[in-house]
């Protein structure tokens, strides 16, 4: 496959500005990281709808809840570890009330390589998808990212959008992405299925191409909507392919692999499932590529599960 690499994080501010132009209910909440999350642009354009909380993530999430209860649409944009981790009970209360809050968690998984294990969000999917009412979207390219934001605005309730800080292949899908729907990106046969979440798209694509070169023909499946997840497609795939490999920039516990396993455990017969992600350990500092490689999110590791 031919594609250019792109950083989705760079588009957060730009897209929020565009959407806020059409909808004056949209707010951005920031906790001193607007420079990193690229929401500074929103602050300049819409200062009244930009709420700086200082370094106070718990309160920021509850402020979003308050804005939503007055009919506004707040986007709390921060590193995934803070949105999903530091402010977890605040997010849970907002979800309990089914408030119209939106969360963008960027620097997800090991994307914040050099900051080290403290800042790696390898548990955010597990944390957010276990909360009732919360919808979880992971865009894998620029088009999907804008679609995720539009879906979040159109949907009345809490939505968590996981946005990669590391580069991803910008392969635009022909059809629009929808909540609850997965996409078969490539379908070359039934030797395997690689099922990935957007922030790990790079290794998923590279593995798929390498396997093809080696004569293994399989399917490449993008999970845009982690919750609700496309149960029908996953069930169907599990009847036809020889092996399923889940690929995630996340712990293998409770994330995408966990979600797939929860579906397939209900069936008596299905393809075996192998999980690629971080194996229940804390990581370390390094470039995102180095850290991902060392902790299992690598092309070699994916291929090893299949060949």
């Amino acid at each position, binding site marked *: 496959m031919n594609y250019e690499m792109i950083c989705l994080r760079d588009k957060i501010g730009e897209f929020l500005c565009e959407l806020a132009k059409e909808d004056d209910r949209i707010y951005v909440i920031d906790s001193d990281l607007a420079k990193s999350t690229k929401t500074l642009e929103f602050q300049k354009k819409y200062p009244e709808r930009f709420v700086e909380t200082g370094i106070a993530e718990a*309160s920021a999430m*509850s402020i979003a809840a*308050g804005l939503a*209860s007055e*009919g506004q649409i707040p986007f709390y944009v921060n590193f995934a570890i803070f949105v999903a981790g530091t402010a977890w009970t*605040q997010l849970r209360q907002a979800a309990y009330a089914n408030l119209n809050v939106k969360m963008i968690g960027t620097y997800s998984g090991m994307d914040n390589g050099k900051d080290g294990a403290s800042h790696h969000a390898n548990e955010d999917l597990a944390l957010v998808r276990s909360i009732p009412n919360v919808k979880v979207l992971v865009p894998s390219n620029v088009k999907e990212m804008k679609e995720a934001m539009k879906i979040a605005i159109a949907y009345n309730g809490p939505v968590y959008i996981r946005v990669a800080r590391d580069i991803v292949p910008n392969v635009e899908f022909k059809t629009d992405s929808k909540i609850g729907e997965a996409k078969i990106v490539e379908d070359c046969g039934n030797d395997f299925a690689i099922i990935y979440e957007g922030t790990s798209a790079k290794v998923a694509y590279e593995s798929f191409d390498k396997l093809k070169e080696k004569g293994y023909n399989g399917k490449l499946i993008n999970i845009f909507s982690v919750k609700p997840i496309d149960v029908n497609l996953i069930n169907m795939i599990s009847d036809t392919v020889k092996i399923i490999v889940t690929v995630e920039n996340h712990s293998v516990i409770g994330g995408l692999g966990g979600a797939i396993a929860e579906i397939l455990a209900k069936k008596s017969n299905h393809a075996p499932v192998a999980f690629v992600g971080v194996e229940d350990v804390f990581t370390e500092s390094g470039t995102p590529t180095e850290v991902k490689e060392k902790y299992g999110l690598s092309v070699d590791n994916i291929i090893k599960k299949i060949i």
Partner: protein
Amino acid sequence: MILIMDDIKQLKILANENRKKVIRMIHSANAGHAGGALSVIDILTAIYELDVDLNSEKRSKVVLSKGHAVAAQYAILCSKGIIKEEELDTFRKVNSRLQGHPSTITIPEVDATTGLLGQGLSVAVGIALAKRNLKDKNHVYAIVGDGEMQEGQIWESLLQAAHYKLNNLILIIDYNKLSSYDNVNESMNLEPLNEKIKAFNFHTIEIDGNNMAQIVDALKEAYEPKDKPTAIICNTIKGKGVSFMENNPKWHSGGISDEEYEIAKKDLEKIEEELAK
């Protein structure tokens, strides 16, 4: 602004009626937080009577951050017809709208889903910011407990409320001096509380929070134009109005026996008779 009702004697009578409902609910549920509901109910009654028009779409909002005192809020919403009298006996029971802590899913009029301490003042900051941008002149109240003031998030939101000069936000601190443990200042000292909140750039007012005349004066002072949020520190008595509960840490939470219920009812009837004189 127009005050809906500020007759001191009427407010006292209403607060006493609400107290009766609180003990009825907790007796029926055989569980609940009587002490903190009874300490806060005077100012809570006054806020709803003075400033909360439940029939209006744009109105002042009340975030009961000390959500365990929810029986007080249900009693008031019952007096307003939002909750039916017989529904009070379903409190904390399965299939009831009357959850153990406020939930907007079952009763939207509670205004905020609370219960996890420390979060309500931040929610009120969000509401106040939205109201200011939407040119809605109403207020938002955050009702917090003294024990709750030990939560870190409270101090985050104190900074934020003052930073944004939220003059439409009124913080009510129910300072009954007792938390679940016992003496709140022995578990973790809050003093000097008034000075601390003043230093955070709040306008502070300190009153006897079970004295209706002082409550009404304090609320009117809070409504006056200013460029900062207001905090009303209410020195209250935990379990106020029920003889065996007053200042007794045992009544932070727990059921009320049939025998205790009879004594409590008599205590409140006595207050009612005195108010009728």
